[in-house]
């Protein structure tokens, strides 16, 4: 038993299993192994997508070629690029996600500010209704909206997405209202009161004091909003069909578009639609988001610390 308390043993144990002051080596190794394993599981679909997308049709048919293609084949990308009509759909995707997002962010911040800084009756009802707008499935409200838009001639017009956003009913608006509510509620009242004594109007106080204090919340809300609008296909599909084509919309009818451009009867067998072209299309579809993510990743990753997103 003596040997267990020998200083050398104690030190080894300290290094391996950690002590009160720091973590041990074993723990660190296990931690990294777990993180790498989970990280791999996360990245696996992306890796698969990318590798498949650069396979030539020979590689696709060859069962020996799994993870390492024999050559870097870019023909799939060329075809996917043409099928997606990339520059045009990309531009429309950007417009369709950025415009409603800007308006939605602004309006949700006004509503969040009103809820956080003023005392009035019926506030709890508004919170319940906010939760309701988050929960109600879109298909329970979409048909009458579509019919109304049809009567107004707005189907296929970006206004069909912009109007709800302006009224605080955009895609996942409730979350943004809550984010702003959270970030405005901690604002000290003193600033507001002294500005009011100086005769500033409520809107002025909002724009001059509240908005600058919540810049991180604005950025985070805007980025999330863009991402969610970009990826949304149910509403965009119904409201914009026939007028505007976004990247995800074009991707969801990829097969059809491909066959229009390369009719199956007329092209040789290697140019038929295969997984590699589909994966190239998918990759082109998420590429702008990936670029944005890596440029702005600090804002995503640190959004927690900056806005204290919770849902209380």
């Amino acid at each position, binding site marked *: 038993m003596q040997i267990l308390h020998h200083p050398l043993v104690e030190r080894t144990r300290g290094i391996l299993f950690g002590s009160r002051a720091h973590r041990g080596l074993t723990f660190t190794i296990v*931690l990294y192994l777990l993180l790498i394993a989970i990280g791999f599981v996360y990245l696996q679909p992306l890796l698969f997508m990318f590798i498949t997308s650069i396979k030539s049709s020979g590689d696709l048919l060859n069962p020996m070629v799994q993870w390492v293609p024999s050559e870097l084949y870019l023909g799939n990308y060329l075809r996917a690029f043409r099928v997606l009509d990339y520059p045009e759909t990309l531009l429309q995707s950007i417009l369709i996600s950025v415009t409603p997002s800007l308006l939605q962010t602004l309006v949700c911040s006004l509503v969040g500010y009103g809820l956080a800084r003023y005392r009035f009756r019926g506030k709890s009802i508004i919170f319940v209704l906010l939760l309701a707008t988050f929960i109600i499935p879109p298909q329970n409200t979409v048909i009458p909206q579509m019919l109304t838009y049809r009567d107004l001639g707005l189907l296929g017009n970006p206004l069909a997405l912009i109007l709800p956003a302006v*009224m605080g*009913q955009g895609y996942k608006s409730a979350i943004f209202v809550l984010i702003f509510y959270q970030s405005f509620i901690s604002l000290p009242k003193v600033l507001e009161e002294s500005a009011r004594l100086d005769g500033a109007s409520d809107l002025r106080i909002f724009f001059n004091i509240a908005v600058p204090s919540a810049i991180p919340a604005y950025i985070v809300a805007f980025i999330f909003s863009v991402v969610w609008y970009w990826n*949304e296909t149910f509403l965009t599909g119904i409201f914009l069909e026939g007028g505007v084509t976004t990247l*995800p919309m074009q991707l969801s009818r990829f097969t059809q578009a491909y066959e229009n451009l390369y009719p199956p009867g007329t092209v040789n067998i290697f140019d038929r639609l295969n997984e590699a072209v589909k994966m190239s299309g998918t990759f082109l579809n998420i590429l702008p988001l990936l670029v944005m993510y890596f440029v702005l990743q600090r804002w995503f990753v640190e959004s927690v610390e900056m806005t204290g997103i919770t849902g209380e």
Partner: protein
Amino acid sequence: MTNRREINLRTREALNGYGFVLIWIVGFSLFTLLPLLETLRYSFNEVTVTATNINLEFVQGANFTRALFTDPNFVELLIGYAIETFVSVPIVLIFAMIIAMFLNQNFKFKGVFRVIFFLPIVITSGPVIRELTAQGAASAPGVSNIPAVVEFLQELPRALRTPVEYLLTSFILILWFSGVQILIYLSSLQKVDRSIYEAAAIDGASSWEIFWKIILPSLSTATVVNAIFTIVTLSHFSENHVIQYIYSQTYNVQGGIGYASAMSFIYFGVMIVLLVVIFLLLRSRAKRESK
């Protein structure tokens, strides 16, 4: 005199407050409440849409009985949806909690891992997921192809086989749905005062005890929020089979909009039941812990 001024000030404050939220209230009535009521009305009618107007013919509950008793697909899809949600929610919650606790530690390359774990928030969309599932990239790597696993699945009773099969084929997808939930857990963890951990450690509490007695209770609100968020995201996801079925029926000549509206409301009802059940389960747990 002062009392009256006080009242005056209060009314002014309230009015200004209403001023800020007014646009939302108008928007809610126009874009949520009215369409919701209109859809409810459709669900009790046979709806025919012509080029110029919409004709309604009242049919009582015919659309609902058709969905629940005559339609060969709808109820089965609903059951599948309920099972999938019930399997997914605990996995997402546990997984998000583990990742959040990892990310709450200090270690090298933390930034890299954070970037990886939040990546799905950015790229998860219906068509992308559809392409990935179609290529089999969404299943747990290789597991569902192992012969032993396939045989094991065939031995299972049907009631158990569906969830297990779903788990194996969509494992990565389930994990991909935990991005925002990780964020929410992380923000709750960061609100816990570090000195509590230190005090507990000095009192001789093991990490295991600290987890069950300090960390888990402090995450109970976040867990409820995350559960709601997970159920709602999964239920609204455009690749959800029930949603796709309802959507495909909307443009059907037979029944069409009225029938689709009735199904939407049944689906909404099931979703609420799921939310309430999971909410009650989590709350009863939280109560037991606080005792």
